[in-house]
């Protein structure tokens, strides 16, 4: 295919070893119908400006590495087609709400810490542990359906970039972490909800959320973290009442 058309891409650049101030650099890349933003950036790196830094891996929307702001919207660069922006300019920036290390690379330590903080693994009461010989914990399809949607998260952080609350306050535990906690809380094999409540029901947990709902809108995997958070609010409220009525009984 003869490529005569080009499209202009403006990319956020930040080179801390050279200059404390970030700047935007414009590049003209070939316009191809089937190219995604990642293709364009790879072309820039290969042919025009090798100094540009960014994360990417699978290029098919399953690894969660290439999250970026494209014209102000959080997107996966590998799943965002150039032809959507055919008539204008494309502006690429690092994911909103995170400290920028260099160019399009953000510091994801806060996010990683939050994922760990919700104890994302099956927790069982000691007396309910089964030895290996007795086989696996069985689960019906209905029980799986309760939490399956929350297992689909690819940790791409688009939801954090979309959440204005997280941008205003990075103490907020955030959509993906809460969805992950719910993934275990709603898993019939898990008995560890109480252990997660301290993080989830804290002031920087679910109660910071004002249900803007953008997290679910931008999620590339339809995890629907907004719903996970609202459901957590409901169950935490029920807990609160149960605690008032029966303070000495231990729920799950």
């Amino acid at each position, binding site marked *: 295919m003869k490529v005569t058309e080009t499209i202009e891409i403006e990319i956020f650049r930040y080179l801390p070893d050279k200059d404390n101030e970030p700047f935007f650099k414009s590049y003209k890349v070939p316009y191809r119908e089937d190219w995604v933003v990642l293709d364009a950036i790879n072309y820039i790196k290969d042919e025009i400006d090798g100094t540009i830094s960014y994360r990417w891996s699978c290029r098919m929307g399953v690894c969660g590495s290439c999250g970026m702001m494209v014209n102000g919207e959080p997107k996966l660069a590998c799943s965002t087609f150039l032809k959507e922006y055919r008539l204008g300019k494309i502006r690429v920036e690092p994911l909103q709400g995170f400290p920028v290390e260099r160019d399009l690379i953000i510091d994801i330590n806060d996010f990683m810490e939050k994922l760990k903080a919700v104890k994302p693994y099956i927790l069982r009461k000691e007396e309910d542990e089964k030895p290996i010989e007795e086989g696996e914990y069985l689960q019906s399809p209905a029980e799986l359906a*309760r939490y399956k949607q929350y297992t689909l998260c690819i940790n791409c952080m688009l939801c954090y970039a979309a959440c204005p609350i997280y941008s205003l306050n990075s103490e907020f535990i955030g959509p993906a972490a809460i969805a992950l906690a719910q993934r275990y809380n709603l898993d019939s094999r898990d008995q560890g909800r109480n252990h997660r409540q301290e993080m989830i029901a804290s002031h920087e947990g679910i109660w910071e959320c004002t249900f*803007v709902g953008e997290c679910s809108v931008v999620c590339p995997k339809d995890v629907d973290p907004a719903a996970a958070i*609202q*459901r957590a609010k409901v169950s935490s409220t029920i807990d609160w009442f149960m605690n008032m009525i029966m303070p000495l009984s231990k729920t799950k």
Partner: protein
Amino acid sequence: MTTYRKPVSNTWWLERKQYFFFVIRELTSIFVAGYCLFLLFIISEIGDGQEKYTLLILSLKSPISLVLHFISLPFILYHTITWFNLTPKIMKLQIGEEIISEKLIIGLVYISWGILSLMIFWLILGV
């Protein structure tokens, strides 16, 4: 290593359409509180007897009352519609393996609203 943090201004909600409508949605609560106060006024006048009631009806016809009502109604309706549309997110109902469709839940909420509204019209205006 020096990282860069893009500053977040207090007008962050003007920068994206979705954020703007979110703040509008939140501000509908002001009209809710306003109408609560108005309801108290109405109840008070009705309870105080025929004379006060007649004056109340007159004041409902006044320009300022009409203007405030016409401004409040779209905001309150925006509250209603956004509230109803988000209802399925708060409660995911599951029967067996099937998760009940969001559209069904929303439909049921709107139908309940229709029935409740008709009951209010019937109760107050009587048939």
